[in-house]
């Protein structure tokens, strides 16, 4: 057997395995968000999650993929496998955004935005970072190292979310005068299940992004990537738990999980480049950033029911810069340039698209609908019709 056949086969299998893990993030996001919102908005949030997977993937298949990579051809593995792997990413950017505006956003305009994100915005970001690179040779050309998308996925989604919050506004009753009304998660087991599925999906996300397992070096790189990914999640969870305990004497599990996710986002830019101890530090800072950022965004009255800004935007930036700080060969300036260029593009293009869509089809559910819950208005059903709601 030819060695190229061997690598082709093994890498196809490896990428299909990685892709499958990422698809577990679809129920992951769905359960996480369904657990974090109030019962009256659970079906709507779940519908949005399924809609995103269906719509973003289809838009990527029909338009975005070829635009991002310039070609379907692939020498090193089955092109269909590589497509599936890349397709598994695209919905995530919208998930990040939709989660942060849940409990007040209507499905139709979200679906329109999803199409544009899947067909154009996200593929543009991929094009200039991992793909065909139409900026090549211009002064905007990016040399950022971003293995699995701290910037390409997470900050991109985060910037889109920031634009969306500015356009859609906060949940009714969330900030009354200067008081913040706390709106607790409705179903903690779902939150935990969702976060842990995301965690597992991350092994595929980052491991698969190494691109090949079919040499000894690559096998080591993949395994190191997965190990370091996991380690940053561990330390993100630990630091968030400790900080909550020191401050309140209690272990707020939703914050601990957000800390873990923050660590995972932060390590995503360069898990293959670190030794096995650096991710501990990166995750510690990532988890701490989440704990610090959540109340700050609240202070600025940016209402984000799932903490996506703190997890994905803040740590997406931190993680990308961290590669420049901790890895000798990587230029901090290149990393910063990547963060800024992608940030400006993602924010302004999302803002513009959201703004235009909003003219035709209002994103925001009106106050009465929010009061009664989006489930009845958007989906026509209740998530838990037989369970009596407490006061």
């Amino acid at each position, binding site marked *: 057997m030819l060695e190229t056949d061997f690598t082709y086969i093994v890498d196809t299998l490896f990428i299909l395995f990685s892709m499958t893990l990422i698809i577990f993030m679809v129920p992951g996001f769905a359960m996480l968000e369904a657990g974090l919102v109030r019962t009256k908005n659970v079906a709507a949030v779940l519908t949005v999650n399924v809609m995103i997977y269906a719509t973003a993937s289809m838009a990527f298949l029909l338009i975005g993929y070829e635009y991002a990579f310039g070609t379907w051809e692939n020498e090193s593995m089955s092109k269909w496998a590589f497509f599936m792997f890349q397709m598994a990413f695209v919905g995530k950017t919208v998930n990040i955004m939709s989660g942060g505006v849940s409990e007040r956003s209507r499905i139709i305009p979200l679906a329109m935005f999803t199409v544009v994100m899947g067909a154009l915005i996200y593929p543009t970001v991929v094009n200039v970072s991992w793909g065909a690179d139409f900026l090549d040779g211009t002064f905007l050309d990016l040399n950022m190292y971003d293995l699995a998308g701290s910037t390409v996925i997470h900050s991109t989604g985060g910037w889109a979310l920031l634009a969306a919050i500015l356009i859609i506004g906060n949940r009714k009753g969330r900030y009354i005068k200067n008081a913040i009304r706390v709106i607790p998660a409705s179903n903690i087991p779902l939150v935990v299940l969702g976060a842990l599925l995301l965690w597992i999906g991350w092994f595929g996300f980052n491991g698969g992004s190494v691109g090949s397992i079919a040499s000894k070096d690559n096998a080591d790189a993949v395994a190191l990537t997965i190990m370091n990914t996991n380690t940053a999640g561990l330390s993100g969870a630990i630091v968030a738990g400790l900080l909550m305990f020191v401050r309140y004497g209690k272990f707020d599990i939703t914050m601990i999980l957000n800390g873990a996710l923050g660590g995972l986002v932060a390590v995503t830019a360069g898990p293959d480049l670190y030794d096995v101890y650096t991710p501990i530090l990166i995750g510690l800072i990532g988890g701490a950033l989440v704990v610090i950022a959540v109340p700050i965004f609240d202070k600025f009255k940016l209402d984000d029911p799932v903490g996506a800004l703190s997890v994905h935007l803040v740590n997406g930036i931190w993680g990308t810069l961290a590669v420049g700080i901790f890895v000798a060969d990587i230029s901090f300036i290149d990393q910063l340039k990547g963060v800024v260029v992608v940030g400006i593009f993602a924010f302004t293009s999302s803002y513009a698209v959201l703004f235009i869509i909003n003219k035709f089809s209002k994103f925001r559910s009106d106050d009465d609908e929010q*009061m009664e819950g989006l489930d*009845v208005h958007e*989906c*026509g*059903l209740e998530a838990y019709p037989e369970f009596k*709601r*407490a*006061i």
Partner: protein
Amino acid sequence: MKKIEAVIKPFKLEDVKDALANIGITGMTVSEVKGYGRQKGHSELYRGAEYVVDFLPKIKMEMIVTAEQVDEVTTAIVDAARTGKIGDGKIFVSDIDKIIRIRTGETDNEAV
């Protein structure tokens, strides 16, 4: 002593509670109930079939007050709970013979 029962819209609970606190009423017992009246339920959808949800969520508040407080309390509730839209709910007043505070054994007006 009188018992005041008020059936109100769920999202008015905070307002009514605050209004009552303002006039010194701090003891009450609340439960979620379903109401059936002129206000009709919305229709729901399930796998391609529509149907009407008859019973609407309401909050029932019960509080025991002295006879003199009745008017003040009912006025406060009406003011705080009214939206002017159908389904705002009702208040019922009835007599109570006797009250006992379990913790102390105090009875009647002292136990309100």
